[in-house]
């Protein structure tokens, strides 16, 4: 019962944070509401007894990445006058909501069809560093390895698109 209440609390918070990210005009407010989403997601992971992911979510996403984002926004020092005038922005948001309705109802229908199941107690080591490590390096070795290529491409792409460019000789 208590866990259920927590689940709904975190779920609602995470969705509200995501909506806030879309609705707020100032990037600072958007980033702060993204922090809310990140932290409530961490709460959801904790409810699933995923200890390691819970900690990583807090440290890496809500901590490191978000503080970097906030740092850059503060660095740019964006004032209200710097923001572009968005005419007809409510109209776009209304259009977005209309597009979302069929997808959301489709998803709700799917979720409703899931047969209910009793919660079972997981093993004592579940979700810990050792268990996640074993799964990651035994069952999911290939995805883990190719993520390194993905990160390399992202790094290279960032340098190419944003870095200082030497012209070709």
């Amino acid at each position, binding site marked *: 019962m208590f866990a259920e209440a927590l689940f709904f609390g975190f779920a609602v918070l995470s969705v509200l944070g995501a909506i806030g990210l879309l609705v707020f005009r100032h990037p600072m407010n958007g980033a702060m509401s993204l922090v809310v989403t990140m932290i409530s997601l961490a709460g959801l992971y904790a409810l699933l007894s995923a200890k390691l992911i819970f900690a990583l979510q807090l440290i890496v996403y809500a901590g490191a990445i978000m503080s970097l984002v906030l740092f850059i926004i503060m660095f740019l020092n964006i004032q209200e006058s710097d923001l572009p005038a968005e005419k007809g922005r409510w109209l776009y948001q209304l259009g977005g909501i209309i597009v979302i309705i069929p997808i959301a109802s489709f998803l709700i229908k799917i979720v409703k069809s899931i047969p209910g199941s009793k919660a079972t107690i997981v093993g004592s080591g579940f979700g810990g560093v050792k268990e996640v490590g074993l799964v990651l390096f035994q069952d999911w070795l290939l995805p883990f390895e190719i993520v390194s290529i993905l990160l390399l491409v992202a790094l290279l792409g960032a340098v*190419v698109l944003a870095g200082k460019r030497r012209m070709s000789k």
Partner: protein
Amino acid sequence: MNDFLSLLPLLIISSGAILLMLLAAFEKNRLETAAYLSMGVFAVAFFVQLLIGCGPATTLFNDVFNGMLVASNFTHAAGLIILACGFFTTMTTHSYFKVNTFCTLEFYATMMFGACGMLLLTLSQELITAFISLEIMSLAIYVLVGYDRSNIKAAEAVLKYLMLGAFAGSFFTMGTALIYGGVKSTKFIEIGAFCADNSATSPLLIGGAFFIFVALLFKAAAFPFHAWVVDVYDGASTPVTGFMATALKTAIFTVFANFLSQNSGLHGSWVTFLFYISVLTMFGGNLIAIGQNNLKRMLAASGIVHSGYLLIALVAISTEHFTGSVIAYYLAAYAAGTLGMFAALAYLGGESEKRSTFDDFKGLAKVRPYSAAAITVFLLSMAGIPPTAGFMGKFYVITSAISADQMALAVLGIVSSILSMWYYLRLIINMYFHEATESFETQGSLFATACTFILVFCVFAIGIYPIII
């Protein structure tokens, strides 16, 4: 050992990409050296892929990789097409970047990383691996599209593509999550086994498959998700557009067919959906293509139409003895024609792609008879006139549709093919039967010209190959 050989082309490409990336850090290295190096790597990988051959489907390193990579004749052929696309695109860029000077060494490294992602995508038989390879491929392509930072059209293209592509990626992950919820596994083979035991119409499976199809159809530029194609293809530089149109489509359709062919129940429950998508894709694409005045935009729209034909082939695949030969053949035929077209455009276009509209090509046959003849061959192949490869490709697609009892689809495919003559022949008429209004000369350089004429040969060779064998 055999498993290692099957992975060897992938390893060659990725180590070549990393090598080039490191070389790019040194001032001394010239752009041409990088072009030759990457041509060499693509060529070596192509010949290795050609030599190793492949029998029936084999799971690569089943113990270590846990059955996530599967090589078969189909993936082997798709890999060959992708590597060939990479090779010819590099040849084209070598000439293109002589007149358009925004290239750096990283361009070639990025392209090879993209090819690496595509090869992984063809091999992957597991949704998470497929997602990561899809993202490797997409990230590399985003960077290539936006490479020319001074060009505002390229900036627009990369922004549109990145935003929509991120959406498609999130749909893919959502689909994966739903399928995992239903099947308790993300491996294609387990999904197929689940569909065989239970019905393929459990809500979680339908929802999951739907979202995955949305992502794949987006990348393949099928009908409701095609809006980005024209702008993005137009904004990207010509060789990149050619690479996107051919290699990326090959990778996407390979993984699509691998997924669908797992189980007849899974395939059967989506046939009607794919039927309508393919019809709308063909006719929507034709409608867009007829209205275009810019050659690159026309080719982008015709790419949508070709996705429609490939979707016909997907509707018609048989899940009992799936070979994918029709799809692979069509992809090869389409790749030869399209790459050739873009290679010719790359050296005829001149500085910052001056020659771009239909009117600019008026009277080209008088000034450059050989180039005009080559373009004519490519256009006829895309339109599907015998004895070119495009005709045989369409022939196989249509006959496979008929043998799968999809008569309506076969007829609509032929109708769409006739409609597409309009915009292909329009360019040929412009080149041969009109006087040039204004003329300017471009310096054709050795590589792009050679590439164009090799591809003319390929168009005929691929067309005649099934008759001889």
